[in-house]
């Protein structure tokens, strides 16, 4: 059996009477894009928060490369190789595009205590940051202030920062959020190539992107995984059609 890179086992989290995630067990295998879909309020954000360390689960465990990381802080998880992107871009808007990528490279290296030499003169950091920006196609706007980027470029930068970590696994929270058809297509192409570097757990509303990218799909409804399977299996699944896809059709 193939060892999962990222795995949740029986992850549960309740807010008062609301069971936001209910016994969620998901695996992310090497080289795959595993999409998590579900209607609004299905618990996708809560799931991501528990995987990335922003929320601690009531029950269940999160494993990265077979190691239990449930009790580790968000920074420790990132150091261990978990790179997340945010649904709402979390970028230092006053800084340049390059500086945002440098921050990722700095985080990957750890020890951010150097105070006398400029970060830009640090070739190791800079090469890592520029490589990631090149990968997402932002080389032309390196020196631009992040606030001046288009929404689509910001979404690309989100991915670039995650790339600078050279992670074991990506966790992406609606990377297509707010993108038009063209931007969505560009990012889909980008993510498609990324799975060779590290598998992606992809939470996404854009069904075209999900069906184009996903190797496997898990459907989350009221905090529970109601189905997991290939794109074709999920499309054919009666329960899923009723619970989710049916609403859109």
């Amino acid at each position, binding site marked *: 059996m193939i060892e999962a890179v990222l795995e949740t086992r029986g992850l549960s989290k309740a807010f008062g009477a609301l069971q936001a995630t209910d016994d969620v067990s998901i695996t992310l295998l090497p080289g795959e894009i595993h999409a998590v879909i579900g209607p609004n309020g299905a618990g996708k954000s809560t799931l991501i928060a528990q995987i990335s360390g922003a929320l601690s689960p009531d029950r269940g465990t999160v494993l990265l490369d077979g190691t239990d990381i449930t009790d580790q802080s968000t*920074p420790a998880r990132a150091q261990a190789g978990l790179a997340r992107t945010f649904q709402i871009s979390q970028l230092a808007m006053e800084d340049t595009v390059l500086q945002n990528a440098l921050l990722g490279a700095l985080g990957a290296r750890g020890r951010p205590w150097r*105070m006398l030499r400029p970060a830009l003169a640090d070739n190791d950091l800079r090469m890592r940051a520029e490589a990631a920006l090149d990968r997402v196609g932002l080389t032309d706007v390196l020196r631009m202030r992040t606030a001046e980027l288009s929404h689509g470029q910001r979404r690309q930068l989100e991915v670039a920062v995650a790339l600078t970590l050279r992670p074991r696994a990506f966790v992406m929270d609606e990377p297509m959020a707010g993108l038009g058809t063209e931007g969505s297509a560009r990012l889909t192409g980008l993510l498609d190539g990324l799975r060779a570097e590290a598998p992606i757990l992809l939470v996404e509303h854009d069904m075209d992107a999900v069906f184009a990218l996903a190797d496997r799909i898990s459907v989350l409804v009221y905090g529970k995984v109601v189905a997991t399977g290939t794109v074709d299996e999920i499309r054919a699944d009666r329960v899923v059609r009723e619970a989710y896809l049916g609403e859109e059709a």
Partner: protein
Amino acid sequence: MTRETLFNLVVLAGLIALPLYAHLADEPFTITLATRAVILALAAVGLNIALGIGGLVSLGHAIFFGIGGYAMGILAFHAQSFVPLMAWPFVIEGTKSMPVIWLVAVVASGLAALVVGLLSLRTSGVYFIMITLAFGQMFYYFTISWAAYGGEDGMSIYVRNGFPGLNTLVPIQFYGICLVLLCLVLAFNAALVRSPFGLALNAARQVPDRVRAVGLNPFRLRLVAFTISGAVTGLAGALFADLNRFVSPSMFSWQLSGELIVLVIIGGTARLFGPVVGAVVFVALEHYLGGVSDYWHVWFGLLLLLIVLFGKGGLIGLIAGRTRAHD
């Protein structure tokens, strides 16, 4: 060269030329005013490291200013009274040597900032402001009741402390010492902003979640920044005490913490020379408006109001435009 750099150089040239002119024209009081401005600038530069880059609005920086002052006061008091500071288990004598006093002031205020930071940086926003204020009040009332060192009356030091090779009693020489220290700290500050640490601290202010997500701990970044900030303000406190040859609990007062924030805001938050411009304007207005009316604070308040309302980058923002993203 950017407009801001040019403007900073003009300010620096003024800080060199004006006191030199006053020295030649034999106006020692002007030099004393300039010294006061430079020392307050140094204290505010310290605050700006926490407030400007780190976004930490500390209403307790008088703690570090006061500790620096008392470091000077206590060491010099024991030196002038020939009573050792400590007799057991080993003897520690007082000292009148500025470099030693500075070292003690920086270490003591840095340690205090580390402890205050550890306890207060868990909070943010208004709670952080209130906790730092509370710590400030604790130190203030402690020194008031510290009878061994003058309590409420403070301590007078009869002769200014010495610096090897200089005569610190000559106003222009003491001014030179303060200006050189300010320039060294400004150079450090400029390097810090561009460094990996500055990058991470700056990001921790804007997007802490992102900083965590790339594997860094915003709390530690802020704690280190706060400690450095406190140490710099402590150094300024030691110089301030030496300027007045007097220390008292008022160095710990919350009004002083507030004044330091005002200096930073007037000059321009997170701008390298913001605190310098703020301090120069403050001291000048205090002197000249204060000569016209006892109620000069009203006019000063009006200036502050105008700057907060219309000039987001402070006076430097008005003169030199918005900051350039570093490249």
